[in-house]
């Protein structure tokens, strides 16, 4: 009962945030609305007792992705806000096709099964269990991912250094 009330409130927040994020012309307003959506989603995870995923949702999506988006906007000329230029959307009909396809293929089967017959299994999404799973069966995957990320990091640093400019004293007079 109480969980249901919380579910409706959080879902409303998430849906409203997503709508505003899509509809707003102002970039920064859009980003913050997107962050509201992420926050609502993390609340829903918390409601499902998946506290680690909720925390990671806040840490990665609001903390990292949000700040990354703001950084990207900060580096553009539109940091001061809306300057009246409009982004016109072409090809929205294709978007509609994709949206309908997602609804029919992914969501409709799930909706038709409601109310779901039974909860599949007793699951334990606790932090401890997750850590053990990561360290025991999936440790190789984890290591490979870490290696990949390190390589990406080094690549990013190399790319960011760019072409070395000749020093002033090396230039011919």
């Amino acid at each position, binding site marked *: 009962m109480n969980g249901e009330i919380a579910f409706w409130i959080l879902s409303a927040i998430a849906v409203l945030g997503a709508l505003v994020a899509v509809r707003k012309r102002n970039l*920064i307003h859009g980003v913050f609305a997107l962050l509201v959506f992420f926050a609502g989603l993390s609340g829903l995870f918390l409601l499902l007792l998946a506290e680690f995923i909720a*925390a*990671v949702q806040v*840490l990665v999506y*609001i*903390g990292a992705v949000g700040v990354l988006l*703001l950084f990207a906007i900060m580096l553009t000329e539109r940091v*001061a*806000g809306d300057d009246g230029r409009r982004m016109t959307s072409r090809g929205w009909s294709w978007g509609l096709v994709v949206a309908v396809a997602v609804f029919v293929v992914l969501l409709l089967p799930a909706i038709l099964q409601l109310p779901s017959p039974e909860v599949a299994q007793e699951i334990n999404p606790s932090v*401890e269990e997750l850590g053990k799973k990561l360290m025991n069966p999936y440790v190789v995957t984890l290591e490979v991912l870490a290696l990949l990320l390190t390589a990406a990091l080094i690549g990013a640093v190399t790319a960011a250094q760019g072409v070395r400019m000749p020093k002033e004293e090396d230039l011919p007079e």
Partner: protein
Amino acid sequence: MSQEPLIDILIDILIATVPLMLIFATLFAFTTWLERKALARIQNRIGPNKVGIPCTRIGLFGLGQPAADGIKMLFKEDIVPRGADRLFHLLAPILALIPAMLVLCFLPLEFPWTKSLLPVQAFLLDGAVIFFFAITGLNTLAVFMAGWASRNKYSLLGGMRAVAQMVSYEIPLVLSAVIVVMMVGSLNAAEIAKAQTGWDWFVFSPWGFAAFVIFFIAALAETNRSPFDLPEAESEIIAGYFTEYSGFKFALFFLGEYIAMFAISGLAVTLFLGGGDGPGLDVLPWLSVIWFLAKIFALIAMMIWLRGTLPRLRVDQLMGFAWKFMLPLSILNILVAGFAWHAQQLENTTITVITWVISLAVLYGAASGLNQLNRSNVRPREYKYAE
């Protein structure tokens, strides 16, 4: 989930949270007074000493100053610049305060009256430490929001500086906390505090001490405290991101900043200084709250002392220090702590002593080596025309 009626749960939540807010708001008022007094003494002044009991000449060392400041803030006109984004200008100080308040409930403060509260116990989640870092990260957004919404170039510069600084220093902050999580094997704040009972604090080991120092420095930068107060450097960008704030909105920023200081000091106490551990707990169990708050205050006093002593860093020094000194050192420290954990499992005194000596040598060597590597090759200034 639970079958309790909604109203009971709400009352339980109020019993748990309202005292927390009241205690820390009172401590905030006291800390502002303490900071002004201490800074004044460091600068050979007296500091606030007039405001005491109204209508009398009793000064009470100026203890009435916070109340007077609060009343002044409330009655000040709230000015919003014409070009500002009114909604975000209003939301930013609130967003600055909420995460700081929210993380207070992850601190393992064992109040006598929260023992019986079930929902609150449930809220002391298994992942308290990771939640703490996730929610304190939101502060960055509030600072950027304030800088952007003011539509003032100094505000925006301050906001940008704050974002860059907080993002950089979050990494050593989290990496130094990882050591404690590794040693205890839990992300639960209460369990981490429990693992250190009986003076077995993490700060009393080479790796723990190094981690504590890194954590404390990074915490200073995270809360925009001096010497890392570049986002509000008054000689360069007026007051940074809150240049355009006045009245109660400014007071909210101020409150948020201090609550964040309490929260991050509280986490430092939990992780490294044994939480509520201290003498006399067998006789009076509620003393643990007092010890906890006393340790927080010791760290706050340290912050005030540093503010009175150290000059502000330059931007390149700030970034270089985070990425070239703190980050490598904290990663090396994790490695050292990993070896130390394995050595501790053997429970052999000789091996423990050897581990301590080796890790001390490694950490000291790494710190001084990094210091040598980062030394900038600035020669003494040559004066051409002066002298």
